[in-house]
């Protein structure tokens, strides 16, 4: 695929992604609960969406004509919040209130609480339906704003996902582009062993979707896939993004146990040092 981003743009995105990963670890440690593994695997996708792609205005988060994003795997809320803070929706310091009483940073995304959150999610399987509704509304109004959603691979075990998959293809929602964060792990272990949703790409193809498969940590590939999806008419696109759960923190990478566990303050210091030492 030809290069669509300049080297400077890529460097800029990498810096944002590094800052987001740093904040994910810090906020989950402070909260002493949360989901680091799936937040870190989704970080690069969120970075490209919010810093290279989506038409949004952090000073006007509810603007009618904006692009919208639904985090269907709502437990990756720390990644979304860190991305929104990095993008300027609210102060970065507020991230440290995650999961605490009276905080706008709820354990799972709440559109009523957090500026920039377009849909309340957290109970798995429900986000794609909402994204469909948003895409249908844009079509009805002849608006060209686009809808994006991010699904977990374990989440594909939910039946509602496939109800929604059928709908998006049936109504030809070419203004909808979704990602599957294919990190291969869910709480109880490898997705293949718990309840295999494999083969993933073939399933979506069979449901009538345009399917792209990429490395979910390659910022240029993520951006290129989104541009490719925009060219497709009459069909929604799913980008199956192969990712590493816990990406960026050696201890956490590919370890299912880090799905929903907070690092200790000591671990946090080591992990932050590791992340900050990464060359960009």
């Amino acid at each position, binding site marked *: 695929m030809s290069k669509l981003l300049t080297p400077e743009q890529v460097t800029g995105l990498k810096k944002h992604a590094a800052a987001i990963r740093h904040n994910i670890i810090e906020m989950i440690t402070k909260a002493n609960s949360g989901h680091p593994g799936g937040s870190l695997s989704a970080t690069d996708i969120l970075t490209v969406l919010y810093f290279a792609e989506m038409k949004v205005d952090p000073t006007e988060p509810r603007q*009618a004509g904006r692009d*919208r994003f639904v985090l269907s795997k709502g437990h990756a809320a720390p990644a979304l919040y860190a991305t929104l803070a990095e993008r300027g929706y609210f102060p970065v310091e507020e991230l440290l209130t995650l999961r605490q009483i009276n905080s706008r940073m709820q354990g799972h995304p709440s*559109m009523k609480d957090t500026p920039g959150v*377009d849909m*309340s999610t957290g109970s798995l399987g429900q986000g794609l339906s*909402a994204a469909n*509704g948003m895409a*249908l*509304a844009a079509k*009805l109004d002849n608006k060209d704003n686009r809808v994006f959603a991010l699904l977990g691979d374990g989440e594909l075990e939910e039946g509602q996902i496939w109800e929604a998959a059928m709908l998006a293809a049936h109504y030809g929602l070419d203004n909808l582009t979704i990602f599957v964060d294919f990190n291969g792990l869910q709480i109880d272990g490898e997705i293949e062993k718990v309840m295999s949703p494999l083969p993933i790409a073939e399933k979506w193809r069979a449901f009538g979707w345009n399917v792209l498969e990429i490395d979910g940590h390659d910022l240029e590939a993520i951006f290129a896939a989104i541009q490719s999806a925009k060219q497709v008419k009459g069909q929604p696109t799913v980008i199956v993004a192969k990712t590493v759960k816990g990406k960026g923190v050696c201890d956490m990478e590919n370890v299912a146990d880090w799905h929903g566990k907070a690092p200790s303050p000591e671990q946090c210091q080591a992990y932050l040092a590791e992340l900050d030492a990464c060359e960009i």
Partner: protein
Amino acid sequence: MAKLIATREAYGDTLKALGDENKDIVVLDADLSKSTKTSVFAKAHPDRFFNIGIAEQNLMGTAAGLAAAGKIPFASTFAMFATGRAYEQVRNSIAYPKLNVKIAATHAGLTVGEDGASHQAVEDISLMRTIPNMTVIVPADARETEQAVRFAAQYVGPVYLRLGRMGVPAVFGENYKFELGKAALLADGRDVTLMACGVMVSKAREAADILTEKGISARVLNISSIKPIDTEAIICAAQQTGAIVTCEEHNIIGGLGSAVAEVVVEHCPVPMQRVGVQDSFGESGTPNDLLKKYHLLTEDIVEAVLQVIKRK
């Protein structure tokens, strides 16, 4: 005999009219549009009607997304599937974010009839009223349905409308105006108050007439607004008539009877009796045979009054 009109019929007609007036109104159904009467809207406004297929969870989720993007979606299917199958979608995707979705569920209660227990929702009021942010309305006749549907369209926030399959007689005249959180006084009385919703309202009125002949003066309140409920009218009735009988085509657990009891015990405890489905599933049969077998007839209300008055 007076003309009978099912509340679902009035729903379909009102929806079509609303669609003419407001282009933000969209309608979703899950392969039951001929039964729920959303087909009337679909015919007039095909571009704003979405058949979701037999997928009620996705029905609610899609409606939530349309509402998040500024539309006013009416999502329809049978009460069983709207509140049972898709309960958690209604809770988490619609009510928690307080999205502007109208859930208009038809075929509620035993009067679904021949389809039997699998299709007879006798728990839906209970399920919906326990969800924060949810408004619950059970219209009694065609006129009130029209009013309630129009109210729902202009109210911002989730609404559950409970509609029936069976034709029901008119309770209200042309001038009736539905008001959220207000009970409608249908007959005044001193000795007991009958509080009814849905198909049971006309039966409560008949019961009041029979009671008059027996020398018992019964007040009749139509409580279509189950949530919010008219606390003032209930307290007033408890204080002034000293006994209450609730009448609903729903399980006596969690529905109108429970909602009224919650108000009564906190403010003015008086003897109460709940006419309704006595914590059982239904079965196949004609609506009238079911109402008879499950003790939801006028005579059952009269009997409940005779019992409750003894406890005054």
